[in-house]
């Protein structure tokens, strides 16, 4: 019996703030700047709306990487949201690292509405990292995973 090795298709959740990064993603689309289809965007009003619980939830349900994109520091539509997000996510990522979760699975980047090219570059780069890391086996609810071969 031959066991066909299933090609690893990662799942990446991107939280994008409505004002900068989501618009940056729109611009990437308008400019036809491709990035992998495994990246699915969730629109949030501001990067500060992203509760660390959402990030953990994504990992629980089988995400292999989570990226949060917001306005550049200083450009937040709500003045200070991304500054809070920056502290929270730094702490969350550090904690995940402390628990032995690969550092590269989480990322925060600042993408403005004018940076379609950057959006696509960041997403391609992040996806590449996740491909290199492979499936997220350390964090995640095994019941939510179908592809685990034991």
């Amino acid at each position, binding site marked *: 019996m031959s066991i066909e090795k299933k090609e690893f298709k990662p799942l990446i959740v991107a939280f994008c703030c409505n004002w900068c990064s989501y618009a940056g993603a729109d611009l990437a689309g308008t400019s036809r700047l491709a990035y992998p289809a495994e990246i699915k965007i969730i629109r949030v009003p501001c990067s500060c709306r992203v509760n660390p619980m959402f990030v*953990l939830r994504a990992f629980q349900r089988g995400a292999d990487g989570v990226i949060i994109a917001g306005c550049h520091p200083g450009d937040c539509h709500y003045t200070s949201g991304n*500054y809070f997000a920056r502290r929270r996510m*730094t702490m969350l990522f550090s904690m995940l690292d402390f628990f032995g979760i690969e*550092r*590269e699975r*989480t990322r925060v980047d600042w993408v403005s509405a004018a940076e379609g090219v950057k959006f696509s570059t960041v997403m391609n780069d992040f996806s590449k990292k996740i491909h290199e890391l492979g499936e997220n086996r350390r964090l995640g609810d095994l019941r939510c995973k179908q592809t685990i071969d034991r």
Partner: protein
Amino acid sequence: MQTNNRPVKEIAQEIFAENQAERILGWKRGEFFYDNSPAVFSAADELQEFVYDAFCGSNLSKFLVKEAAKEGRIAVLLKPCDRYSFNQLVKEHRIDKENVLPIEIDCDGMVDIDKVRALGIKGIKSISADGDQLTIETVYGQKNCSKEDVLLLKCQTCKDRTGGDRFALVREIEEMSSVERYEFWRSELSKCIRCNACRNVCPACTCEKCVFDNDKSGIANKANSDSFEESLYHMIRAFHVAGRCTDCGECSRVCPQGIPLHLINRKVIKDLNEFYGEYQAGADDSSVGPLTSYELDDVEPDIVMNRGGGR
């Protein structure tokens, strides 16, 4: 033990004698000499059961959330480390400060009975402290040991004494490789039985309704059903108390499975100190915590990616 050379019990008696408060929050002797537990005394004669010795590790601050809301002024005995929790709760408006008479009492470290037992001392009848030495009465006669060797984990690195480096263990874990860290926490957290003792004792966990009990929160669960939930519970708890945890060490003290939960909180404290400047939650009752404030030139999250430590 004494405060200003007076037995603490005397101070308590004086509170009632001088009518400074209607109730006193202190400790009373439990079934065994080493399981003193928090208690509210409402009259002088109840103080017969009052005790303050080397087994009063529990932090009384949290009980004030309920007790201070009740009728009548309440006096509370606060060891130096409990004072931080008290301040933090006052800061968060969880305790009505006006209704509380805080009494600061001295503490020279609390003893962990399991550590005494671990020295091979059996049949313990009582333990008395004499400076740095403990005198242990056992059914096999008197034994002695150094108090330093049997202190509670949280007392070994006491913030108010020149204790050891409280981040030493955290650093050790940081230096592990990513896989080792993962294995370390798996082996520790897989012991978790979700008894919720850590949450119930934590002075920072005083929510009207805990998210883990609120089925609308999306993360409610009563038991860990898989390895993810074992980690998730402790991660979320650590994040919820981040910037508010005073490092009182109660979580590890009460964990029936002996999981070093305080290390997670200490990791957070260490990071907060390194990234955003030294901060001791509860050092005062008004300052704004590090996760509810920011600086324009804060470190970027990729510092986690780029700094040292095991990968």
